[in-house]
């Protein structure tokens, strides 16, 4: 892996599967893979944090195991749980059901974290929106991320058969603990610059003409400079391009009504829709053209 310039290779391989990564992001991912450390990605919503994990899994040909975090997530949902119903049935059905049989692998429900360390091949483990889980859950995670093993009282310790590539994402709903941050490499993903965004549209977009693609990117970039509650991310930009392509628009300035109708792809709050009036849309479109 640590070839002459591993990270440029990695960037090229990501680009081949349709993910345009910045230099800093490619380097961080390369280091995470080489040093075997978790990678913590932060950035606004819709800049491609989750997408990176999916792309990485596709690129490595590995399985993607995803744990979506939410407030109140606990060990029973993230690590393992016993299948109590089956255990009860087994005890009642067979007279010979004793404790050792009931607490065996057969009755264990694996949840994402346990599943990730029991794969024969290293999977990509995506822990999505870790800042939504509460702080106690971070503590669970510390144990697993540093030792890659899970202790089950009835069964003993299960060690990792392979070390997953861990990617955590956060978008700043709350500050993460320093202990967790210290165990991870860190990369901040910003909104892409114009050239990068054009490359993303070319790689992922619905095959729009070059002129329109330039206009779309210019328009979205200008829109991000407006005072918005929620700036449109890359995903929104791609939706916008798809919508325009679907409506058969060839030039942003052609059809003001259609353009304004497609703003639903980019503006996701009521205040933003109110702030970006048709006149503002026209002004931005005129400048992008």
């Amino acid at each position: 892996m640590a070839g002459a310039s591993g990270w440029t290779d990695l960037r090229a391989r990501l680009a081949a599967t349709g993910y345009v990564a910045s230099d800093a992001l490619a380097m961080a991912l390369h280091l995470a893979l080489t040093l075997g450390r978790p990678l913590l990605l932060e950035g606004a919503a819709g800049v491609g944090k989750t997408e990176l994990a999916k792309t990485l899994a596709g690129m490595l040909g590995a399985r993607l195991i995803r744990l979506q975090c939410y407030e109140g997530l606990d060990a029973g949902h993230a690590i393992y749980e016993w299948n109590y119903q089956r255990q009860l049935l087994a005890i009642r059905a067979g007279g010979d059901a004793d404790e050792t049989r009931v607490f065996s692998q057969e009755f264990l429900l694996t949840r994402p974290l346990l599943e990730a360390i029991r794969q024969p091949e290293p999977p990509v483990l995506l822990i999505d929106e870790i800042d939504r889980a509460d702080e106690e859950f971070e503590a669970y995670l510390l144990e697993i991320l540093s030792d890659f093993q899970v202790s089950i009282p009835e069964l003993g310790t299960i060690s990792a058969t392979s070390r997953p590539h861990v990617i955590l994402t956060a978008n700043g709903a709350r500050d993460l603990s320093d202990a967790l941050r210290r165990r991870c490499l860190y990369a901040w993903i910003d909104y892409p610059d114009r050239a990068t965004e054009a490359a993303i549209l070319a790689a992922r977009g619905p095959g729009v003409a070059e002129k329109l693609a330039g206009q779309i990117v210019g328009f979205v970039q200008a829109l991000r400079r407006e005072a918005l509650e929620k700036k449109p991310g890359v995903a929104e930009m791609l939706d916008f391009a798809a919508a325009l392509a679907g409506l058969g628009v060839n030039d942003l300035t052609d059809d003001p009504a259609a353009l304004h109708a497609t703003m639903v792809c980019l503006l996701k709050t009521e205040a933003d829709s109110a702030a970006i009036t048709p006149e503002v849309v026209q002004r931005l479109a005129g400048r992008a053209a």
Partner: protein
Amino acid sequence: MSRVTRFPARAGGPAARLSDFIDHLRLNGFALGPGETGVALAALTAAGPPTPQAARMALRAVCVANAEQHARFDDLFDAFWLNRGRARPAPPPRRSQERPTRAPQPFAAPADGAACAAGAAAEADDGDGAADAGGEGRLAASLRSVDTARDLRAYADPESLAEAERIAGRLAKAIRDRRSRRHRAANRGGALDLRRTLRASLQRGGEPIDLRRRRRPDRPMRIVCLLDVSGSMEVHARVFLAFLRGLMGAQETARAWLFHTRLIDATPALTDRDRLRAADRLSLMAQGFGGGTRLAGCLHDFVERHAAKAVNRRTVVVILSDGCDAAPAGEIGAALARLRRRAGRIVWLNPLKGWRDYAPTAAAMAAALPHLDAFLPAATLDQLAALEGEFARL
């Protein structure tokens, strides 16, 4: 390559320089342990050809831990490694031990404090003159004549102080966290605890006869208090100190800071069982009581230095202040916005709000409002007692 810093010959090899760099980052507030130095070396090795750009990106991935550090990293990197070809002195022995001590800020003009205490909370501090000064003056005068007699400042006798302490104790107990989604084993509760039920059924030959239950526990919220003891708050200070002692007595994990132009940790003094010694310690801290306020600055210091340890999502931050500040209003908004991201709830108790017709016109107060969960009056003991309902709802 002339921009690259020249290192003195007696400085060590790359490893020593790298550990100096980590030290440099630590001095600038990055939380890096010795482990990170090792990882940084490994990262440089893994990063491929040693160009400045690759090294920068590799070190950034290892050393940076949040968005704010991400923004500062480039400057710090340049300052250390690309010092325009200037020679870097050999590192002085263990600089990191001596923290830069903050020089005490000069007190704000006493006029500010006086103006606030008189209730002319409006624009006296920042003097942008937007408000109608004459109108404010009349308002202040009327407020003073009506409400002075029932104000907290009248309650400085021992019984009232004891009452304030009792009220605070009740408030502290009223704050419970009802957001827990985790379950605990309990004798009574809504949900069955299948794991324990099954375990218990083994005694009965596999028949689940003894049902075990679980429920969501209420957890106490930790309280963190920030009490303004500047000149404008001086008249309220004794009652509020008693109030604080009540809060601290009710909860072992509660912590308190006093601030005027500086921020002082009052937790040890307030939790002292020996009343006399506690009073001595408080009066030692009181040097500077009654001076100006550096409200935004102190809040900023608190967020920067103490919030990481003292505040989490299960914390209620109680700020006791009249919101009179000499700094531009934007600063307090920024400090509170940062605190907001760490804290569960932020409550502001303002003694001025108890006054009739009070509107949060002080620029600092107005800037703070959007970040608060509750903005409550605290001018009389009755009002303090009435907070119990509000706190229970937090």
